[in-house]
């Protein structure tokens, strides 16, 4: 069953001069067709300004298409009556965890979403406990968010979204401001949620390593989907990715370089073990 589907999605905005004359029309999204299955882990790549974030904002109706249609959990986002249902279906996590903290005690921060939805108090506490457990932050429930590391703050942000029981989480570069440990923590947490709670994950990232374990990868350019497929399919196209300002994990690049030099190994190597395995088999 598809959770997010778009049909020829277009988003245009205009620039105006001081006299309110339109000087420029920009097509940030240009005819995107997506069909994302429930429970999938999706990675969206693409250079700065390629339309990734604009696309993400359509998924929970922060922006509306100027052309085409997007359905979230079967609901057309243009249907205003469904706005809250849509935002409850697809939760959103942004880059800077500090901008998402609203309360001075962690459990209250996590409970903020369901409280706004009018969930009964008892049920809120149940959800808060469950969400904190899911992101491995139960021990911090009564603490202040001030002393958390970036990775921990981002996990609290994710718990806050989880407490609203979404079917899908959209993450817009959630690890951009984190150090390597924080990055690992967040990505591990998201993969666990995807596996154990069957939440659909849409991860926008500039870190290629984070896309390696996705079910499906989309690469955007000029508002269009330029490449898509499994990580293996996408990352085997090293030159095309580089032309799109993307890179590949070092192991993939190394394998690609070795192959170019005549070493007989398969395309699209994503893991260290795959490379060592392939090289051992040369004997």
């Amino acid at each position, binding site marked *: 069953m598809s959770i997010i589907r778009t049909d020829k999605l277009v988003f245009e905005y205009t620039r105006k001069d001081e006299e309110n004359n339109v000087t420029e029309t920009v097509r940030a999204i240009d005819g995107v067709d997506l069909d994302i299955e429930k429970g999938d882990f999706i990675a969206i790549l*693409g*250079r*700065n*300004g390629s339309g990734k974030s604009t696309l993400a904002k359509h998924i929970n109706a922060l922006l509306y298409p100027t052309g085409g249609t997007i359905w979230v959990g079967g609901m057309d986002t243009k249907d205003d009556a469904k706005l809250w249902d849509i935002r409850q279906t697809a939760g959103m996590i942004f*880059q800077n965890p500090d901008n998402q903290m609203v309360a001075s005690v962690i459990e209250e921060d996590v409970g903020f979403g369901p409280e706004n939805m009018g969930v009964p108090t008892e049920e809120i506490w149940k959800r808060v406990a469950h969400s904190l457990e899911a992101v491995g932050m139960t021990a911090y429930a009564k603490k202040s968010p001030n002393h958390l*590391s*970036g990775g921990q703050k981002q996990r609290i942000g994710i718990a806050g979204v989880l407490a609203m029981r979404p079917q899908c989480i959209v993450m817009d*570069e959630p690890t*951009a*401001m*984190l*150090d*390597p*440990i*924080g990055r690992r923590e967040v990505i591990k947490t998201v993969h666990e949620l995807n596996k154990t709670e069957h939440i659909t994950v849409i991860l926008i990232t*500039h870190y*290629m*390593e984070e896309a390696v374990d996705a079910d499906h990868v989309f690469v955007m350019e000029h508002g269009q989907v330029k490449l898509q497929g499994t990580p293996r399919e996408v990352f085997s196209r090293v030159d095309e990715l*580089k032309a*799109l*300002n*993307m*890179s590949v*994990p*070092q*192991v993939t*690049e*190394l394998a690609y*370089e*070795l192959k*170019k*030099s*005549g*070493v*007989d190994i398969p395309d699209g190597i994503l893991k*260290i*073990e795959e*490379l*060592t395995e392939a*090289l*051992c088999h*040369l*004997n």
Partner: protein
Amino acid sequence: MSLELKNVNFTYNPGTPMQQDVLKDINVTIEKGEFLAIMGHTGSGKSTLIQHMNALVSPTSGQVLFDGQDIFAQGFDKRMLRSKVGMVFQYPEHQLFEETVFEDICFGPRNLKLSEEEVKARAEEAMKLTGVPDDFRERSPFELSGGQKRRVAIAGVLAMKPEYLILDEPTAGLDPGGRDEILDLLKELHEKSGISIILVSHSMEDIANYAQRILVLNAGRIVLSGTPREVFRHADELAGYGLSVPQAALIMHALKEKGFDVDTDANTVAEAKASILAALAKRGVTAGKAGEADA
């Protein structure tokens, strides 16, 4: 010519219950013309350390010397220091504020009380050095893309003609192409203009590709220091500090374990490739073909 930190300690709220040691016994000399990388996980003291280098923070004890002179001594010209030791903060594009790109780049030198002619000449030069296109001059800095804004912000610091350029995670939030552009720019500045680069980074791959020397900070102390080859040899120790080594180094170690005669100090894709091809040739695998393509 050097920037030297001698027995530097820095403590927040000394003598109170909130006392917190941030830097402990820091001794480091940065020679002019070096490309130094500083790494350490969040809270290890990296930012506090670099803020000592241009007198934004003064040590609780110890000295910071610029060309042998104590920068906190009475009468030391801190304005001069801050033009010689330029600082590019994280997300520097948030500090752009002028109406045009050119005016924004002029802001630094203008504050140095230089003649208007000199200010403009320096801004022109900085635009050239950083590759800010000429037709950006009259545009609003807010209309530019992330990578372009960052270039403009770096140009604004370069217009002060620093001898040392400190950058706190200059590639955060950029796409891989933008990341390479900024790092290549730093490399070029370093090679062509002889500017010392002090780069704070979380990317082991970038550090391995560009830095000559690495300082590793943990809990306020310098725990490792040396060339990338020397530092990345300590994979287990680095993991203990919440850091890692470039993926290329991990690959080399994995191959060594499988019996390949490879250089485990290789940290970049190019080094790893050369070493693997050599090891394969020794084993008699595709030696001819690999050798040809490599030559």
